């Protein structure tokens, strides 16, 4: 695996093959030209499906057997229930029980609740994971526990990979808060309500077999049909598919940390001073505590200036819904609903609509929404002096987070990362990031509590804030300040083995993660 390596456009050494498949090294933003046609799943016929529309099977095991579960298949699940998902673990327990081996798990994201899958990796049921590995799974993979290499993709990159046929899903299991026996499904009601089901759209369209699992079966028709039953093979009713308080919790409260509030305030001040908050503007809304605080500060600025945002894209929650209902934001284009207020608003308010990685993020489409957003506020574990960003590994080399929509949102017109200069003793601004997840040419501004660095490419922003009392510094000055406080970190040593590939939004490989020593 490590014998043949090529340097990609951001200077990282990439093996020629990963998981025995050839790799296209990242050639630069917008340089890779896809060819050929989209992937097509087998043609189905109504002759094989019940004419009364009732596709129910007694349980998940029966459905997996009916779907032809066997060794080496690619099985997909989704993270709409976040850390409250009860379905994915059961799928692999059943597979283990049936003695199936070498599966590829293709989740839209994994969470700490999926730690039991470590056992399935150990006993051979699962060969490797293609999807984010948050927490325990990432730790296990980082230490070399997984047989194959993980493949991490952005939300948009996941849609692209399925559409282009890079990943061919054998069986998709879609956990749906509400569904009818035909397979129409949505996330708006039911005990496990999560808002939308956009992450499962690609799977429903392209997987060979699709199983809808629900704990809230309604008679046909289930409206609205966020997932269309015409794509669905089987429907399974279960007692419970998710833990509600874990579905809608997480980082959906405004931070109380005075330091983070300070960074949030400074970010909003920057946007104001740079003239980015103007009538009809748009912004990417994040779910982290700092991002939520920035949303609130945007609200204050909009009220003061008497302007409104045309739309906010991204995760919705009570605070964003507040801005919508106050009229400060005209539309929410929701990619992921983070609390019950968000779910309620999406159910009731026609100006609050669900989106999918296809509409918002797919790079191999005829445009997407991400590049139309004026201000994208994102996070990072590390940034380097060339503005390259990392969101997947920590500075000690451990792979602990997924990419989410981060790479996709980098295409926003002004990308701002509000981050602390150091966390505990770990400097966040480095000479080189441990893993390049986003190229510096797409990252415009770094806001820290000790100063703001603007990418020298953005002369327009540098000019716009000239003469303001904002603490503008160079990225090198910030890096040196962090090292003055924390000390210069020693180089971290890695093994040779590649434990994960980081895909760019077009399916090329921008970096790899190696095993920790």
């Amino acid at each position, binding site marked *: 695996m490590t014998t043949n390596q090529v340097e990609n456009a951001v200077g990282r050494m990439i093996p020629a093959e990963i998981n025995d498949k050839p790799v296209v090294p990242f050639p630069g933003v917008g340089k890779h030209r896809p060819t050929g046609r989209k992937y097509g799943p087998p043609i189905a016929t109504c002759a094989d499906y019940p004419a009364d529309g009732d596709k129910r099977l007694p349980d998940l095991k029966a459905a997996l057997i009916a779907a032809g579960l066997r060794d080496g298949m690619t099985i997909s699940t989704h993270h709409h229930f976040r850390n409250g998902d009860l379905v994915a673990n059961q799928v692999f327990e059943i597979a283990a029980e049936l003695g199936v081996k070498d599966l590829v798990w293709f989740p839209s994201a994994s969470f700490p609740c999926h730690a039991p899958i470590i056992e399935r990796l150990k006993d051979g049921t699962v060969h490797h994971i293609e999807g984010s590995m948050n927490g325990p799974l990432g730790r296990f993979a980082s230490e070399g526990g997984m047989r194959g290499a993980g493949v991490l993709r952005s939300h948009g990159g996941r849609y692209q990979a399925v559409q282009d046929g890079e990943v061919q899903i054998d069986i998709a299991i879609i956990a749906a808060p509400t569904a009818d026996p035909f397979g129409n499904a949505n996330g708006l009601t039911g005990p496990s309500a999560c808002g939308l089901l956009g992450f499962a759209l690609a799977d429903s369209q392209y997987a060979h077999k699709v199983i809808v699992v629900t704990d809230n079966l309604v008679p046909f028709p289930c409206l609205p049909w966020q997932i269309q039953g015409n794509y669905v093979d089987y429907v399974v009713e279960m007692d419970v598919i998710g833990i509600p308080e874990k579905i809608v919790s997480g980082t959906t409260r405004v931070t109380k940390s*005075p330091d983070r509030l*300070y960074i949030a305030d400074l970010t909003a001040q920057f946007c104001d001073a740079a003239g980015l908050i103007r009538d009809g503007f748009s912004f990417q809304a994040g779910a982290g505590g700092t991002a939520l605080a920035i949303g609130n500060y945007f609200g204050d600025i909009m009220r003061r200036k008497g302007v409104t945002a045309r739309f906010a894209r991204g995760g919705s929650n009570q605070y964003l819904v507040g801005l919508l209902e106050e009229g400060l934001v005209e539309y929410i284009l929701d990619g992921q609903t983070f609390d019950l207020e968000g779910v309620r608003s999406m159910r009731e308010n026609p100006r609050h609509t669900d989106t999918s990685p296809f509409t918002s993020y797919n790079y191999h489409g005829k445009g997407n929404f991400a590049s139309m957003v004026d201000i994208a506020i994102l996070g990072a574990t590390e940034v380097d002096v060339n503005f390259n960003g990392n969101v997947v590994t920590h500075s000690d080399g451990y792979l602990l987070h997924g990419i989410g929509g981060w790479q996709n949102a980098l295409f926003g017109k002004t990308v701002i990362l509000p981050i602390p200069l150091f966390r*505990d*003793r770990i400097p966040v601004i480095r000479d080189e990031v441990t893993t390049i997840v986003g190229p510096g040419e797409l990252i415009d501004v770094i806001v820290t509590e000790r100063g703001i660095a603007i990418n020298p490419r953005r002369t327009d922003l540098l000019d716009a804030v000239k003469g303001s009392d904002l603490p503008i510094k160079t990225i090198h000055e910030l890096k040196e300040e962090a090292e003055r406080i*924390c000390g210069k970190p*020693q180089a971290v040593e890695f093994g040779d083995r590649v434990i994960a590939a980081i895909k760019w939004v077009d399916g090329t490989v921008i970096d790899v993660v190696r095993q920790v020593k």
Partner: protein
Amino acid sequence: MTDEPIVNHIGVAGNKGPGIRSDCFVTIQLIEGGGFDIDLNSKVKALYADSIITLARDMLASFGLANVRLSIEDSGALPFVLAARIEAAIKQVIETDQEYWPDLIPENRYHTAKDRYRRSRLYLPGNTPKLMLNAGIHKPDGVILDLEDSVAPAKKDEARLLVRNALRQVDFYGAERMVRINQLPRGLDDLAYVVPHNVNLVLIPKVEKAEQVTQVDDRVQEIGRAQGLDHPVWLMPIIESALGVINAYAIASASPRVVALAIGLEDYTADIGAPRTAAGRESFFARSQLVNAARAAGIQPIDSVFSDVSDMEALRRVVGESKALGFDGMGCIHPRQIAVIHDAFAPSDQEIAKAKRIVLAFDEATAKGLGVVSLGSKMIDPPVVKRAQRVVDLAVKARKLEPDWRSEG
């Protein structure tokens, strides 16, 4: 082995456990032979193991220790914290007057003016490193590294070393660097750990008599002479009892180094036997007395703290009253209170307009070489001019006035 007498076999310092960050827990044990046996368990090991081990070895050697088992459980402590913890642990196993001083960073070499603004002073518990690191970014007028009430009795010794190292190494971005020492007599011993490290101001708690101020002042002078210090260390006595209130003027005028007089209402109300209320009628006399004593002595009266950190509206009300009584500043126990306090102590639009007219009249008189400033038909006394200049400065600081306001006419 060391020549120093062994006083203990095991020394421990610092903190660990859930919620502890940017700190470390150090255990030290003198052993028979074997050199240094250092066990490091750190969340930043991959990046800083070498640097931590080098620091530990250097410190052990500089205290003349040769055979030691040292264990460090590190939650991301910065070097000044590691050094303070290791030193505190060493001092439990050997008797020594030696100290291990990290460098005094150039950013911390500034002095402060006697009449500088003291609108806000942020209390930082003296044994909690994580709260110190970013205190300066919130731009309080002063930070107080507290050795008194916020430090548990068993942690007093290690807090002194941490506060000393913080004075040398933490950049507070121009805030006046203050230390609240312990109640006397213990507080007198604290001074040796703060005065040599360019502390700008010492707060003296629970002052009841002028002699207590003199005692501190004398000890500060003595240490200053021994260290060759050429700048004054300002003093801020805190009055927290009925006796202190009665003696307020004598306390305020006990030394030319006293620059402000503060009041601590929690202890004061307990002392007079009245519950502390939101309306604050029980402390009206004391606060007013304090303002008068401070003004009579030509120094700044500073109000107590407001303890409900979540209620910004109530804080705003309290600061408004405080300003109306004549106070110049207030204590803060949370960074979020700073902006509210600065805003409330900022002059009103009418005050600013009047001050601008007086300052412009003064400029004009100075330009014409006139000794007397007049506005319309009224003569303006020098203290009025000075006060107007302060109002203008304060307005600029509170962003209610552009720094180049003169050019705007």
